[in-house]
C-alpha cells in the first residue's frame, strides 16, 4: 500500500513532538530546546512520541517515570541526553546521546523518530505490568453493588467524597498528587492538592518519600562553584542575568507566549554587558503583551511579614524586603550597587524584579573589571542566599501551602512559576514526607 509509506515520509519531516524531562543539571539545556524549530516540545505525554530524559533523574522517581513513559503515545521511544551525567535513568532508554551540543541531540531525535516511523526501530513496549488498579467484582455492569471491597469501586477508582466549600455548598473534593513531571513545575516538585472545582482548597509539598536516599546537589554551576573557589564578579553577574531571563522565558511559556519566550531565550544565550537597552525593550514588550499586566497583577501575593527570616532573593525583594547579600560583599564595593526593591509582592512584582535585576547585573558585569568574589563572603544566587546546606528552594517551598490556599488553578501555576524554583535543588532536597527543614 503506497499511501502509508508516503504519509510516513512526509511525517518524518514534521517537527518531532517531544516530552522533555529535565533531570539534575539539565534544566537550562532543556529550556533552550524551545529554540529548536525541528522539535516541538509538548506539555502532555499523549501529544508526544519521543520521551527525552536529560541529565540525571533520581531513582526515587522511577515509578513516576515509568508511568510517564507508558503515557507517551505509540509509536514511542525514549532517549537519554546524558549531559555529563553517569547515572542512567531508572528506566533504560532506547537511545543515548552523549554529546552536549543541542544540534547533535536534535539530529539524534529526528533520526530516531524517522526510523521509528519507518519501522526500523520498534516502539518501546509498556514498562509497567498490565494490571487493573483495583480489580472490581461488583454485581452491576459498572462495578456497583456487592459488599465491602468487592464492589463499589468502578473501574478501579472510587468516586470523590464531598467537602464543604466557601460558598456553603457541599460538593465533591478531589485529592490529587500533581506529579513530578508536570510541565510548568520544576522536575521533582509534587503538590498534593485538594481541589474543589478548579480552586485549590489545600496544598502540600511532597518532595521526597520517606527513607529514600536523595541525590546531593553535586551538579556544578557557576554559583555553586563560587562557594568554594574565587569566581570573577563579571562571570557571576552574567550568569545571574542569564538565569533571570530564563525564568522570564519559562513564565512566558506558562502564559502561552512561546514565541516571545524564544525571543527571550535567544537573548539569554547571548548576554553581553552592553545590552541594558535590550532589557528596557524587553520590559516594554512584556508590558504590551500583558504578562507584566493583567496576567500577573495581584496573582500570588506574598506579604512581606511572611517573608521575614525565611525566603530571600528576588521573591523577598519583590515584596519590599530590602535584603541583598551583595551589599555586604567587599567585591561589590565601588561598583555602585544598590539593591532593587519592588513592592506588591505579587507575580508581576517578582517578574519585574527579575527583569530589573537582569539589567542591573549586565551593568555590573560591564563595570566589574577584574574583581573576584571571595568564597568566604556570603553569596547571592539568582534565587536567594546560597550557602552550603542552605538552599533557596528550601526557603521558598514552605511558602507554597499558605500562598496557594484558595487560589484558582491557573493562578496557582503562575505563582509557582513566579517563585523560580531551581530543578537541581528541588530534586536534591531530602526530607521526611511533607516536612521541609527551614534553616
Amino acid at each position, binding site marked *: 500500500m503506497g499511501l502509508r509509506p508516503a504519509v510516513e515520509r512526509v511525517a518524518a519531516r514534521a517537527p518531532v513532538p517531544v516530552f522533555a524531562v529535565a533531570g539534575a543539571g539539565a534544566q537550562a539545556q532543556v529550556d533552550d530546546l524551545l529554540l529548536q524549530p525541528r522539535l516541538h516540545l509538548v506539555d*502532555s505525554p499523549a501529544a508526544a512520541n519521543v520521551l527525552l530524559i536529560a541529565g540525571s533523574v533520581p531513582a526515587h522517581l522511577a515509578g513516576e517515570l515509568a508511568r510517564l513513559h507508558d503515557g507517551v503515545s505509540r509509536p514511542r521511544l525514549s532517549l537519554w541526553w546524558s549531559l555529563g551525567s553517569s547515572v542512567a535513568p531508572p528506566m533504560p532508554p532506547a537511545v543515548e546521546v552523549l554529546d552536549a551540543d543541542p544540534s547533535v541531540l536534535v539530529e539524534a531525535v529526528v533520526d530516531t523518530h524517522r526510523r521509528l516511523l519507518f519501522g526500523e526501530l520498534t516502539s518501546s513496549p509498556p514498562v509497567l505490568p498490565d494490571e487493573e488498579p483495583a480489580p472490581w467484582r461488583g454485581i452491576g455492569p459498572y462495578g456497583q453493588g456487592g459488599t465491602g471491597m468487592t464492589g463499589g469501586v468502578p473501574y478501579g477508582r472510587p468516586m470523590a467524597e464531598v467537602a464543604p466549600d466557601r460558598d456553603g455548598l457541599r460538593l465533591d473534593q478531589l485529592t490529587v498528587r500533581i506529579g513530578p513531571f508536570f510541565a*510548568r513545575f520544576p522536575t521533582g516538585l509534587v503538590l498534593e492538592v485538594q*481541589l474543589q472545582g478548579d480552586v485549590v482548597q489545600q496544598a502540600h509539598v511532597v518532595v521526597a518519600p520517606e527513607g529514600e536516599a536523595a541525590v546531593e546537589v553535586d551538579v556544578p554551576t557557576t554559583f555553586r562553584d563560587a562557594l568554594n573557589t574565587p569566581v570573577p564578579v563579571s562571570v557571576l553577574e552574567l550568569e545571574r542575568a542569564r538565569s533571570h531571563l530564563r525564568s522570564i522565558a519559562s513564565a512566558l511559556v*506558562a502564559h*502561552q*507566549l512561546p*514565541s516571545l519566550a524564544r*525571543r527571550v531565550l535567544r537573548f539569554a544565550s547571548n548576554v553581553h554587558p552592553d545590552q541594558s537597552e535590550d532589557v528596557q525593550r524587553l520590559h516594554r514588550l512584556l508590558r504590551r*503583551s500583558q504578562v507584566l499586566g493583567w496576567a500577573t497583577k495581584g496573582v500570588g501575593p506574598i506579604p512581606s511579614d511572611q517573608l521575614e527570616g525565611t525566603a530571600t532573593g528576588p521573591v523577598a525583594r519583590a515584596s519590599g524586603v530590602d535584603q541583598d547579600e551583595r551589599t555586604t560583599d567587599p567585591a561589590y564595593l565601588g561598583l555602585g550597587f544598590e539593591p532593587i526593591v519592588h513592592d506588591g509582592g505579587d507575580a508581576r512584582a517578582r517578574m519585574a524584579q527579575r527583569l530589573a535585576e537582569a539589567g542591573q547585573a549586565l551593568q555590573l558585569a560591564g563595570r566589574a573589571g577584574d574583581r573576584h568574589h571571595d568564597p568566604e563572603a556570603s553569596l547571592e544566587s539568582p534565587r536567594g542566599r546560597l550557602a552550603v546546606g542552605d538552599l533557596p528552594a528550601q526557603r521558598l517551598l514552605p511558602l507554597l501551602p499558605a500562598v496557594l490556599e484558595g487560589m484558582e488553578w491557573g493562578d496557582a501555576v503562575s505563582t509557582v512559576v513566579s517563585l523560580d524554583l531551581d530543578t537541581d535543588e528541588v530534586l536534591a532536597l531530602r526530607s521526611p514526607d511533607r516536612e521541609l527543614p527551614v534553616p
Partner: protein
Amino acid sequence: MRAYLDPGAAVVSVAVAMVVGVYVVAVIDGTAGRLAAGAGRSDLGAVLLDPLRTVALLLTQRRRRTERADAPGWALAPGLLGGLAATGLAVVPVGPGTAVADPSTGFVVFATAIAFVMIAVFLHGWSPNSLFPLIGAYRYGAQALSLQIPFLLAMLATALPAESLAVMDIVEAQADLWNVVRQPLGLPLYLMVGVGVSFWGPLNLPDGADLIGGTSAEDAGTDRLAWELARAAMLFSIAAMGAAAFLGGWWGPLLPGPVWMALKTLFLLVVMVSSRHLVARVRIEPFVVACWAVFIPLALVNIFVSGALLL
C-alpha cells in the same frame, strides 16, 4: 427567493472552503510565531509545508484511550465543533445573490452555531475522565456564557440598518458605508468574541498551558488532528462572517465580489490568529467580570447610538 445551493453542491463548496481556510490559519499562525520570536528571515518552505507535515505526523500517531472514558462523547466532540463551524460558514454570502445557504434568519443560524460550541468543548473535556480536561471544560463554560451576550449585541447592531436577519441583506445594506465605520465599537468586540469562542491565544482557557493542554491533554493522533482542524475552521468561519457583517462583504471597487470577501476574511484572520503570539492568556475571573461590566455596556452603547443615528 433566498439564495441557496442544493445539498451536494453546498457540501462540496463548504468542504473546499474549510480546507483552504484551515490551511491559511495554520500558515498565518506559523508566520506570526516566527515573526514574534524574531528569528529573522526564515524558511518560507517550512512555513508552508509544516502544517501538512504535522497533519501527516498526527495520522501516524496512534489514538489513546483512558480508563472509563466516554468514548462516544470523545468521538463526537471534534465532529460537533467542525459541524458548527461548517454551518456558520454556510450562511456567509460570497457574492451578490450567491450563497451556500441564505435563510431569512441566517444571523440566528450563525448565532446558534456559536452558542453550541460550548457543548462541543464541554464534551471534549468531560469525555476522557481526567482532571485537567475536566477543569478546562468547566472553565470554558464560564467563558462561553460570558461571551454570548456581547457577541449577540455587537452583531445585532449590524442587522439594524438592514432591517433583516438575513446575512445577504446585512451585506446589501453596506453598499454605501461599511458597518465598521457606522458602528466602530462592533468589530473589535466581535473579534474578541471570535477569539474567545474559538478558544484561541489569549482566550485559550480550556486548552491552556496551565492545564498542560486542558481538554486536549489526553488527545493523540487523529483525535488531536480532528480537534485542531475543527478549531481552525471555527476561526475561519468567524472571520468570514465578520468580513460580511462588518467589512462590507463583497462591496469594493475593481475586483470581483468573492475576491473582496476572501481578502477581507484574510485580514480578519491575520488579526485574530496573530493575537496568540502577542498577548498572554487572560485570567478567568477578571475576564468574566470584564465581559459583564465592560463589554456588555459597550455593546449596548454601540447598538443604541447606531440605532439613534439611523432614525
